[in-house]
């Protein structure tokens, strides 16, 4: 089952990041840890995919990065959801629900 931990669809990763950030600004590492905690270790977002995703979403204007102080007084880049990001989250959530429902129907039918 190790593969399911890394086989995150790109869209899914975006959604997870957006969802996590909707609860408040976080820096990259915090984000990674938060997802890890919430999914109880099911998804481990590696830096190699996290940072490109953050970068892409920042260029799309969904999130905004700001330099701030971390809990241990380190300079860290905090990411915050923009209003466009909030809209995007809503859309992705809806699509996701649709997808899950549809797949569930198929699975129940068999």
């Amino acid at each position: 089952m190790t593969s399911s931990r890394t086989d995150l669809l790109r869209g899914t990763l975006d959604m997870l990041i957006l969802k996590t950030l909707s609860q408040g600004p976080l820096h990259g590492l915090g984000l990674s840890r938060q997802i890890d905690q919430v999914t109880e270790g099911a998804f481990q977002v590696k830096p190699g995919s996290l940072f490109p995703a953050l970068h892409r979403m920042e260029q799309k204007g969904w999130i905004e990065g700001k330099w701030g102080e971390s809990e241990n007084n380190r300079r860290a880049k905090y990411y915050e959801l923009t209003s466009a990001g909030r809209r995007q989250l809503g859309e992705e959530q809806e699509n996701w629900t649709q997808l899950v429902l549809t797949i569930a129907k198929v699975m129940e039918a068999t």
Partner: protein
Amino acid sequence: MFLFRWLRGAYQSLFMKARLDRTLDEELSSVLGMMVDEKIRAGVPPAEAVRQARIELGGVEQVKEEVRRERVGAGLDALAQDLRFGARTLLRRPAFTFAAIAVLGLGIGATATVLTLVNEIFFEKPAHVVEPDRLFRLQTRPGYYGAAGNPDYVYYQENASDLASLAAYGGFRAVSYSLDGQRTNQLDVVFVSDNFFEVLGVPPAQGRTFMAEENANPGTHPVVVLAHHFWVRALGADPHAVDGTISLAGSTYQIVGIAPDGFGAVAPTGDPPDAWVPIAMFGDLARANGMDWWQRVPGSRSGWLQVFGRLAPGVTFEAAEANLAALGRALEYDRKAEDEGAYLQRQYRYSPRAAETLGSLSRMLMVVVGFVFLVAIFNTAVLLLSRATTRGGEMGIRTALGAGRGRITRQILAETLLLGLAGGVVGLALAHGLSDLAVSLFPVRFSTEFRPDLTVVLMTFGLSLLTALAVGLLPALQITRSDLRGALQGRGQSLRRPRFQSALVAGQVGLSLMLVAGAFLFARSFRTARGQELGFATEDRLVLQMSLRGMDYDPDQSRVFLAEARRRILDLPGVVGVTTTRMIPFQGDWTWDFDAPPGAQPNGEGNTVYTGMNAVGPDYFEVAETPIVRGRPLGMDDVAGSQPAIVINEALADAIWPGLDPLGRTLPVMDDIPFEIVGVAANANYYQLGEAPAPQSYISLDQYPQFGVHFLVHTSRDAAGMAPPVQAALREIDPGLVFGWVTTMASVFEDETDRYQVSAILVTVFSLVALLMAAAGLYGTISFLVARRTREIGVRMALGANRRRVAGEVIRFGLKLAAVGVVLGLIGAVALRRFTGGFLYGIEPTDPLPLVGACLVLLAVSVLAALMPAKHATRVDPMEAIRVE
């Protein structure tokens, strides 16, 4: 918003890369720091914590590369890199690069030149005119070639105001003018209605155009609008010209405005006028210019005005035509009942005759240029293919270092893209320089300038891009398919025969053959055209154009002047004969049509007879040496007041009275006045060399006076040298005479043959260019093959093969390639025979001599191209060749 963000992202990725990278660095190091903190807090010793954090982060550089790849415009970045790399590669091989750019530049330049012509001739909108598509020409009264009299114009204008706004122009050329009251010169004036500029939508560049009251009463407002070019040329672009004055035919006119630069003739062809004057001034200016015959014109129904209009909003061309035709039929006067009323033509269209000539010449140019372009593409492709093979090793190494096939293909395309664009720039420069030369091919005077415009520039660059893609794809495929391991081991070249190259070279040879054969055909056709029977004499004939200014000449006085002038010229030593004529051959088209008289076959549209027209003085046929085959020529007795006489040529007689004697019959050429046919003249050339015999008529200048006439003087010695004494003799009669053009018939004829020569030269130059490229292609391919078979040749020579045999083999290979091309070319030439035939005079397109000649030229060229490689092949040192591997 999205676009903005994308652009900002792309901008940042491309130009602020360093800053983005720095920010990313900082972020990653802060994350790394936090990870280390975390682990230390969890009790991991510091050194171990750093190690674990690094492992978890998974390589800072890789993360950075991943992030870069995500960036907006990452593709652009790679493209920029490819282009930079391509430019470096090209600069490292200047000879190759120069050759490729030159070949592409020639091909694209030739194409762009023709694009410029075709675009300008067929698609260009007239400058400054608003919505030219909604302008139409009102054609009325078939007897007058579309021109309406002034009362008719007023009638249509008043009754058709809800269909269209009508304006009119008409007039004549060559009025004398003076700016300082001393020196006189000539300018071309057009008479216009007061709304002429408004209907066209042309605003004045300075001052104003005409006002309604300036056209209300004859002779009351001597005002003039000058053409921009005239203002620059004659007034030195004087900024205070407006409100100044100019003297036209002795009267003072106020300059009220200057037309915008580039506005001229209200048609696609014809010379632009120098000045515009209200129609109401016509009588005054005409009288002042010495021809009171014209005085009755403004008030009469005799057609002299060209009426045109702009369709009212919402009115279609067809609706306007139907209504105007009805108006025309309602216009009852002296015309016969079967009058068809009025019909419309688009204003900015060529006459059918011009359109046909322009169309066929343009087609020829496009075909020739298309061939040259194809040869250029083939040639470049061969160049690139040969190079691609030698670059197998380089590409192999790059593949081994991790460059993807896509990236290598893109890289090669980037190179050819650069070549294509450079070729495009060279091509546009060529087109800019060549357009004027090429346009002289057309037997039409255009009212516009020929320069590549934005459309042509865009099309040219589009063409360059397509070319780059076409020539780049083959080598790219070849390279990416090449055997990687072999490449690395130094066997960069596969031993397959260069099939693509051979096919492309054969294609070049074929196309060149067609062009060379075309050049031979044109040269023969040109010689035939030069030597043909013209129907008039060209040697020892002086031509002197003049305008009968003479402010105090009435028609009788001008007749007296012409008679006196002829007498005095004839008295000069060295003069054999003299006559007067309105038209000079090849100098334009004066065509009339009128209702066919009873018993005559119509040769024009509907029930009309059309004929070229000329008005000539006594002795014309004798001096011009156009034989009269029946009846008599026009003579001293065909004067005003006597029975109007006309001489027609055999072509017209055969067309309208086939098998009948035309003598004594009449033609209603003017105002229903029957002109009696007194003679039949032999056919002659009138409009262009090599034309089919065209209908032509001659009437007496005395019975049909003209402003501008030519004296045609038959001299016994150097015709051009007789110009000064003839002019002096005429000035003795009137010192104020204004002369126009002074030339000889020989040079008029020369100008016309030059046009044929230009097309012959053009095709020759193009075929030479193609030939050169084909030779280069052959040479390149053969050398390439010899180079690749060096080892084989070496081995064979080591085994005792003799040098001559090796050389012969190489030359045979060249000949074989050429032979395939020659056969293809011959098939093409025969397939195109109908097309070629249309441009030839006196020679068949399948005439064997030019075709055989072209084949020989191509085969000779292929032997020449093979000689050098053959020599190389014989110099192969067996020891060296074997050691190479």
